[in-house]
Every structure is written in structure tokens, then in C-alpha cells.
């Protein structure tokens, strides 16, 4: 029992507990709150995995951005105070069954795979210094270089004559364009429109 295990235990418990609470809560705002707990602890797990950049991104975008967006959505779409839309017991049982099946499937898979074997045999290329950069907490710079198409984390210790590894320049550009399109599209979709009364909406539907 060392410090890492303790921290992992805390974060894992918070993550799983938050997720379970999200699944069980009926109030949407509370769901959002538990989501914060879960995602924030997940970012703690990322930090434990030495992925500090991903962890910070998780905090910034998921917790700081997406969840705020969700709460916004809740506030804009609630017709009354503290609204609840309860599910029927049958549906709950049905989803519980699906969940149990799923989790048993996952447990089965996780336990039945020899991960040590995978880690040792599935080496992409022969490189002992492969994870050098990952072990000293400096993932920000290698990730940035990878986005620009240069892979010091792979190529630094590579054997002579080996071709240079590829980076993620094109996907990075595509994603940024995608974000721009989404920005415009979301703004267009969500712009203020005439509110249709219930009668109207019914008649239009029919």
C-alpha cells in the first residue's frame, strides 16, 4: 500500500461513484454535479498516469466547458423549477439488465486477457527509449511536437536508417476546421427563433 495506490483508490472510487450517481439520480442538475465529480476524478486518474496534458485538457474542456454547457442546456430547457422526468420501473429494470450484461462482459474480457503478454509482444517497433518522455512528466512538449508532425518521443532513440515516424498534423488541422464548423453550426442551430405554441406544433406534426 503506497501513496500511488492510495491516490488511485480515492480517484477510482470517486470516478466510479460519480458515474453510478449520475446513472441513479433523476434530477438533471444533480446529474451534472455528479458528472463533474466523476470527470474531475478521472482527470486525477490521468495525472496519476503521467498524462498531465490530457488531464488538464480534461479539466478545462470537459469540466469547465462541456458541463457548463450542459447546465446551460438544463436551464434553458426546463419548463418548471427542479423538474424531473421520471422513467418507468420497467425501463429501469431493462436498462439495469443491459448494464449488468455489459459489465459482466467487460469483466470477463479484462480478466481473460493477459495484459503483460500484450504489453511485451505488441511492440510497434523496437525501441527501448520509447516511453522516456512519458516517465518524466513532460508530455506537453512531445504532444505539441506530435501535433506539428514531428515525433521526438519515437525518433530520438530509433535505430539508424529507420524512417521518421508520422505525426498528427493533418488530423490536427481537420479537427480545428471541424471545431470551427461546429461553432458556426451550433450558433446557427441555437439562434433565437419564434416559439411555437403547443397547438401549433401539434397541428404541424399532424
Amino acid at each position, binding site marked *: 500500500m*503506497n*501513496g*500511488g495506490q492510495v491516490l488511485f483508490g480515492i480517484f477510482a472510487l470517486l470516478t466510479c461513484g460519480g458515474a453510478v450517481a449520475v446513472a441513479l439520480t433523476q*434530477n438533471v*442538475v*444533480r446529474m451534472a*454535479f455528479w458528472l*463533474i465529480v466523476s470527470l*474531475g476524478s478521472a482527470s486525477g486518474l490521468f*495525472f*496519476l498516469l*503521467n498524462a*498531465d*496534458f490530457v*488531464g*488538464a*485538457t480534461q*479539466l*478545462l474542456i470537459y*469540466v*469547465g*466547458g462541456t*458541463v*457548463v454547457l450542459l*447546465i*446551460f442546456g438544463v*436551464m434553458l430547457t426546463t419548463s418548471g*423549477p*427542479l423538474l424531473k422526468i421520471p422513467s418507468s420501473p420497467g425501463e429501469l429494470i431493462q436498462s439495469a439488465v443491459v448494464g449488468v450484461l455489459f459489465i459482466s462482459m467487460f469483466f470477463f474480457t479484462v480478466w481473460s486477457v493477459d495484459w503483460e503478454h500484450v504489453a511485451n509482444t505488441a511492440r510497434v517497433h523496437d525501441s527501448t527509449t520509447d516511453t522516456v*518522455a512519458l516517465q518524466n*512528466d*513532460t*508530455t*506537453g*512538449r*512531445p504532444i505539441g*511536437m506530435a501535433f506539428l508532425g*514531428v515525433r*521526438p518521443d519515437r*525518433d*530520438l532513440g*530509433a535505430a*539508424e*536508417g529507420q524512417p*521518421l515516424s508520422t505525426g498528427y498534423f493533418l488530423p490536427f488541422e481537420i479537427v480545428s476546421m471541424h471545431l470551427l464548423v461546429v461553432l458556426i453550426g451550433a450558433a446557427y442551430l441555437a439562434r433565437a427563433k419564434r416559439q411555437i405554441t403547443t397547438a401549433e406544433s401539434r397541428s404541424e406534426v399532424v
Partner: protein
Amino acid sequence: MMTTLAASTLAEFMNGYVSPELALMLAALFHAGVLLLVFAHAALIFIWLERKVSGRIQDRLGPTRCGGRFGWAQGLADGIKLIQKEDLIPRDADAFLFRLAPYLACIASFGGFMVLPFAADWVAVNLDTGLFLLFAILSLEVLGIVLAGYSSGSKWSLFGGMREAAQMVSYEIPLAICGLIPIVAAGTLNLTDVGQMQVGHFGNWFLFHDPFTFFAFFVYFTVATAGCKRAPFDLAEAESELVGGFHTEYSGMRWSYFFMAEYASMLLVSGVATLLFLGGWSTGLPFIDQPIFVDLKSWNPGIGPEGFVLGSYISNLIGMSVFLLKSSFLVFVQIWVRWTFPRLRIDQVMTTCLKYLVPMSCFLFLGATMWPLLMAMGKGQKTTIWPQPLGDRTVQVHEHVLHPINEPKIQIADRGEQTVDFSETPVIAKEAILTEAMHSPSEQGIQP
């Protein structure tokens, strides 16, 4: 991450007495306690400062009696009063969230201190992604506010929360962009490195790095003021319209948590401004910086336990006081602004951000990235493909892209042009370039 806790010296100190893990834990707890003290005292001192400054601005005296001279214990008295107050929870409120919201806001602004270096060696967590994480944590504060507003079950609170959410989400964009501008100049997100780079002559401060960083500082400070929901941007608690905004229904200690969070984040953003633009803990005078931050560091009279360097400790102490002095001055400016300018309307607040500050910061960011290019062109270095005639460019593309085997020259343009023929000296050249690309700026150290 474990190894980067700056508590390592303390942990080593305790190593002989307890197990290493426990020592680390204890050291971490100790440091957390120290930070908590800073966090709490920031609120205590700045509330008193706010009262005094507002009093002077309004031609009053402010608190005078509490604690003797200058009313210095006024904040303490306020705190005691607030602790005594009844902790009310309205009937319509969502009690669970209502209780939790103030803690969430506090955690967010407290968490930011984790990566903020107070002196060259005094930082809780020395992360390479420091500023990024700081902004990430800072962005969480809004959640507490929004949840507080929502769970109060009051329309004033709800409006306050909504406004706050809209405002802070919008202002995060220029805040992050302006924060990135000195980062572009520095080349690292590590705040300790950023601070170390500026030690020496005050021309080293990123404020004076180029015209874009200069203007970026003012944009940043405006945005940061708004990000702390300070006047003239304090729409979330606009008492003339919303009674008390998101904290209308709060009382007692929970209410004061919000204020602790506010004043702490004021100190936090001011500290970031100091680090990014105003030279961090450097005094700006090389003849002072050199003896204190360079020479004194290695002075070890042999006092205290093994591994403890007294000179380094004193140097850090002086650095921290300089840093806190600069940050406090910025906080003072924020207070000054609050009592000078009238409050904006909510649409004006949003317009200011989205129509003016965002484009401005984008322009400044663009300019800051173009600046080295301009400087290089001014010095007559070959920088871009611009002065090449059309045909040459076509030929180059043809040779390098379509038939790379003929001429396997690859250019990596990163801090000065280096042309390396990868086919001839593959390993060494690659090593050199990649290594340099990996750690360029952080090893520059002090340049007095």
C-alpha cells in the same frame, strides 16, 4: 507527479523518522496547509484593504478602530461574526447542491495556487503544463457559482448564476489567448521557467518583450478583472438589480466562502499577471537580482539539517515578498478600478468581451507569433519563401515533395534555420535537432 512535489526537501528531512511514503504525504499535507493559510489570509487582508481603499476614494476613513491602528483586525472581526451567523437553507432550495456549491467555488480558486510559483523554488507542483492547468482549474469556479444560483430556488440567484456563467465562459476565451501571448515568447508553459526567464534587467520582462505583449498585458488585466466578476463587470451580484445575485440566499460561513474564493482568485490572476508580464519575483534591477537570485543561492553556512541551504531559503523568501508585493499592487489596482468606474450593463459586458476583447486578443496573439518573423526579416535573415521567385518555388516543391529521394534535405525551422542532411549523418543530427526541440527555452536560465 509524485516526484515533482516541491515538498521533496521536507520529505527528505522527515525521511529518517517515518517511512518515505508517509513522509511524502505529511509534506504534502504541510504544504497544503501553508497554501490554505495564504488562501485564507488573502481574503482577510484584501477585504480590509478594500474597505480602506474604498473609504479613501470616497473621502472617508474606512475602518479605524478594530484592532487598534488602521482597523487592521476588521476582517478578522467580520469572520468571527460570519461564523456565528445561522446557516439558512431556503425551503425551495435543492439542499444538497446548495450546501456543496460554496465549497466547489472555493476548491476551484484554491486549486489554482497549486501550480503558482511564489519564488524560484517555491511551488507546490512544478508542472510543465502549469499555466494550462491553472486556467483549467480557474474555469471550474463558474460551476460553483452556477450551481449556487440554480440550487437556491430563487429567481435572483438564478439570474445571477446565468449571468455569471455566460460572462465567465465568454471571458475565458480572451483570458486564455492573452495568457498564451507571453507563452509564445517564452516557449514554455512551466510557470517557474517563465518566471526565471525574466530575472535580471526589467527589459527581460515579457511586458517589454514586444509591442503585442505590452498591449496584451492590459487586455489580460481587463479580462482577468472581469473573470473575477469584479466591478465594473460584477453583473452576477449586481445588488441594484439582483439583490445579491447568486448569493442572495446564502448566509454565514457559506456566504463568506464565496468571498474568500473571489479575493483568492483576484490574488491568483494578479499573480499570474505578475508572472507572465511583470517579471515574477525579479526586481527588474540586475544589480539587485544578481546577488540575491544568483549569488546567494549557493551560500550555505551549514546551518540546519543536511540538504538545507540557507542562502537558497533567504533568496526564495525575498523573491516571494517581491512577488507578493507586485501581485498585491495589481489587486490594489483592481480595487481602485472597482470604486472608480460605474457598472456596465449585461449586454455591454458581453459586447465588450465578444466584440472587442476577443478580436483584440486574437490580433495580439497573431502579432506576437509574427513578431519573431518580422525581427528576423529585419535582421536580413532568410526566413520564408516570400522572396523567392515563383519558378524556384515550383522547382523546390517538385524536388522536395515529389522526388524526395534525389535530395533528402529536410528543414526544421525552429529557433533559427537549421538545414540538416538526414541521409548523411542520420542519428547525430536527428538527436541534436530533436533534443533541441524538446528542451529549448527552459535551459536559458538567468540572463542578468
